[in-house]
């Protein structure tokens, strides 16, 4: 909850790029981070403990009014983070309810609306005002909103399906992927083709199955190996009876009686890899195939709708241009109006996954806070150096299988919109969490060393040399000391002696090899530790940490 207010929703829908980076993956398979997030969120809600993270005191935004256009993951996260700082936040959304694409793009079987509702309700309970059914351009001009607030955030998302640019795509029976997911028309007895290989295509084909379609095809111009969709989504779609037509590219949609009747497909083959290393599909000269059908769903991408936002400076992709502090610019800037920030799918590189929009929204809130505090905004801390995971010996860890949530049988789930995944059980969640290697630094957010290094633009690696030879970890009553993070600044020694009046720890050894140890390296010397934690608080890196009881 420290980061964003939608853990139960994101835990269910996120394609979790984090899991690809998880170092447990080097042992056998990564931690089920997303499933654990959903479990933790569901469990706290079940216990009635679902609550916002503590308010942020510094810098406080009490009395500041911020209006947000768009009630999706970006807009809601931004609202939540601003509300935690005491701002008076108002969120405008064109749809009847909040949630954006999480509500209107993600199918119910992946994210039940009730789960999302609980999370949006929490945001409302923090005093954030929701205004639904409000469309910029129709109900008010963007400039009008700028007059009613001290800062405006545009997070209106990408709600238009990208066209295929082929003859016949305007026919009746051709739908945009996200439009189809939003409207969910019955498809009883229909033959449906979904064009595209991403997660939206998977959502569309599986939704089509549930809406009664007789046959559902996915048409994709490359092969299964190149599909950007999550593997689990492809597998579950197959289980539910979806047929895949690989290496086929639609070139024309044919009509009969004014509606879709067939789609002409160009047969493709894989050519040379492109700059991303993905093999480019190239047409096989003269080879075509015809697919008889009556519904086509285009799920090849989505774009933002600039209507109502014409005054904002745009990128050459047509998205809103935002700078590194998430500031957007008005083409004819008038003085005295609230500054405009922008984040999410409508900005810069366009549509991505929800968690990327959320990350931007969190930083946007920080940028707004910095703006009111009169400070320059600096994006996340980043890292100074990272150990190459290839050079770490993971063989010391015992292999334990990854826990995955049970799913309902395909025959049962394809008939309704009930949630496919049953979620992790408490036992599974504990087993899964215990697989964590705890490789991250617990003090990363508070590390003074990395902040100083960044502020002073220090090239830390230039003078890289021998490392501090200290042992990895020593336990000191309830305090864990990681000597490899220790910079021997001596603050803990001083605070123990001068403030706690104990003097239990001291410096052992001289110069470079100095380590911090109980007096005379005697573990009994720390028996007098009252666990006042002053040393943990004083530690500027992450060398000291309090162990959980």
């Amino acid at each position, binding site marked *: 909850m420290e980061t964003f207010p939608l853990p139960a929703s994101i835990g269910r829908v996120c394609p979790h790029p984090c899991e690809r980076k998880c170092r447990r993956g080097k042992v056998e398979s990564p931690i089920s981070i997303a499933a654990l997030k959903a479990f933790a969120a569901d469990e706290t809600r079940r216990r009635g403990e679902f609550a916002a993270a503590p308010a942020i005191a510094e810098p406080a935004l009490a009395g500041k009014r911020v209006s947000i256009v768009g009630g999706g993951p970006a807009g809601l996260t931004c609202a939540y983070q601003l509300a935690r700082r005491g701002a008076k936040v108002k969120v405008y959304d064109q749809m009847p309810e909040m949630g954006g694409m999480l509500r209107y793009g993600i199918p119910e079987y992946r994210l039940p609306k009730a789960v999302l509702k609980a999370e949006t309700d929490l945001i409302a309970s923090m005093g954030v005002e929701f205004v639904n059914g409000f469309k910029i351009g129709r109900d008010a001009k963007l400039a009008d909103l700028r007059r009613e607030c001290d800062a405006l955030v545009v997070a209106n998302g990408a709600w238009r399906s990208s066209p295929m640019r082929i003859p016949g795509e305007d026919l009746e029976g051709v739908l945009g992927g996200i439009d189809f997911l939003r409207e969910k028309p019955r498809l009883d007895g229909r033959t449906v083709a979904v064009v595209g290989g991403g997660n939206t295509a998977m959502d569309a084909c599986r939704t089509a199955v549930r809406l009664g379609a007789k046959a559902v095809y996915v048409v994709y111009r490359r092969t299964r190996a190149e599909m950007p969709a999550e593997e689990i989504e492809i597998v579950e779609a197959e289980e539910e009876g979806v047929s895949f037509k690989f290496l086929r590219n639609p070139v024309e949609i044919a009509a009969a009686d004014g509606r879709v009747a067939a789609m002409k497909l160009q047969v493709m083959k894989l050519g040379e890899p492109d700059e991303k290393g993905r093999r480019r599909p190239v047409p096989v000269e003269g080879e075509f195939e015809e697919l008889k059908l009556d519904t086509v769903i285009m799920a090849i991408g989505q774009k933002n709708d600039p209507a109502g936002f014409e005054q904002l400076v745009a990128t050459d992709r047509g998205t809103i241009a935002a700078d590194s502090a998430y500031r957007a610019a008005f083409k004819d800037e008038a003085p005295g109006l609230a500054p405009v920030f922008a984040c999410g799918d409508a900005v810069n590189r366009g549509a991505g996954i929800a968690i990327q929009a959320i990350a931007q929204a969190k930083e946007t809130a920080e940028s707004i806070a910095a703006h009111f505090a009169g400070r320059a905004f600096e994006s996340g801390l980043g890292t100074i150096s990272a150990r190459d995971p290839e050079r770490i010996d993971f063989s010391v860890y015992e292999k334990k299988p990854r826990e995955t949530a049970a799913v309902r049988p395909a025959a049962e789930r394809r008939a309704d919109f009930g949630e496919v995944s049953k979620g992790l059980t408490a036992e599974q969640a504990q087993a899964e969490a215990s697989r964590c290697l705890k490789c991250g630094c617990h003090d990363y957010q508070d590390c003074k060393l990395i902040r100083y290094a960044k502020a002073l633009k220090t090239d830390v690696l230039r003078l890289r040399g*021998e490392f501090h030879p200290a042992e990895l970890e020593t336990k000191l009553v309830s305090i864990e000391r990681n000597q490899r993070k220790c910079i021997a600044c001596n603050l803990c020694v001083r605070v123990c002696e001068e403030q706690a009046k104990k003097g239990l720890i001291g410096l052992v050894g001289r*110069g470079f090899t*100095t380590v911090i140890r109980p007096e005379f390296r005697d573990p009994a010397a720390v028996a007098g530790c009252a666990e006042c934690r002053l040393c943990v608080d004083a530690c500027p890196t992450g060398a000291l940490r309090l162990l959980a009881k």
Partner: protein
Amino acid sequence: MLIAAYAIGARDAFVYVRAEYPLAIVRLEKALADARKAGILGQSVLGSGFACDIRIKAGAGAFVCGEETALIESLEGSRGMPRLKPPFPAEKGYLNKPSNINNVETFANVAWIILNGGAKFAAMGTENSKGTKVFALTGKIRRGGLVEIPMGLTLREVIFGIGGGIRDGKRFKAVQMGGPSGGCIPESLLDTRIDYKELGATGAIMGSGGMVVMDETTCMVNMAKFFLDFTARESCGKCVHCRIGTRRLHEILTRITEGRGKEGDVELLEELCRGIKDGALCGLGQTAPNPVLTTIRYFRDEYDAHICERRCPAGECAALRKFWIDPAKCKGCGACARKCPVKAISGEPRSPYAIDSAKCIGCGSCEGACKFGAVSRV
């Protein structure tokens, strides 16, 4: 000391001696016992009613305890680490009381001045530096040892006059003045007078009075490495500049002497040295870069030879040394091959042996083993 104590009204006095010098401690103890017996120390010094006693504190041998505030910490029973100054010891010293802290040599001079008069002391020496100074003359010198000389003599007079010049007919190369954190003075500056100001201008210091003479077989990079090895070990660890900085200097110097130097290393050394001089808390760190800075200043060509040509001009750095066997002198006895630790020497008895330079590690064992002078450096 007693005079100083009387002058400032101190009751307690200490002599701080390293515990590794037991002979000095034994002698000092005898002197103190004798003084007490003679009534010079104690409740009423010479019957004057002034009470003062001197105690001996045996230090555990940390170099940094020569720094006055670290010495005071050590006296108090704490870890020998310098304090931030101010306050200076004259305001808050031992047990936070005003303290006077001086070198033995200084106190010794005081007694002489009182006995003989200030004018007589000032008659010796130069404008800036009066009196005499004791030096420990050592290294590749014919006659080494402790010498007390009047200030103002030139280095040449001390080394070639008193010291009798260089041993074994070798050429003079440099003199390291002022201990491990002093500086190196080349032959061209041998006519520098021994005077605080003039010595300081060369980059060296008077320091502890160490005077280590080096001849042409000493590699100046290796010499700087040797002193940095010492200061890095003796750094107390309190401030980052000294703790990490001296270590990094030593690592870079090691790299250079092992033939792994990189272009820009000398500039990096200089930058680090400046950082350490500016940032270090006490004299140890502030002066530790001196050997590096002065050798770069006067012997930059040796650094460049190591880095660019992978060559040690003095032939001292083992990793950069290569040997060869003169076939005309080699009798084929095989003594060198038997001594070689890496089996780089091969040959048939009674015919000239040869060294495989790819295997040779430059240790020099063969040179020492050869009775016929057939092995020499390339």
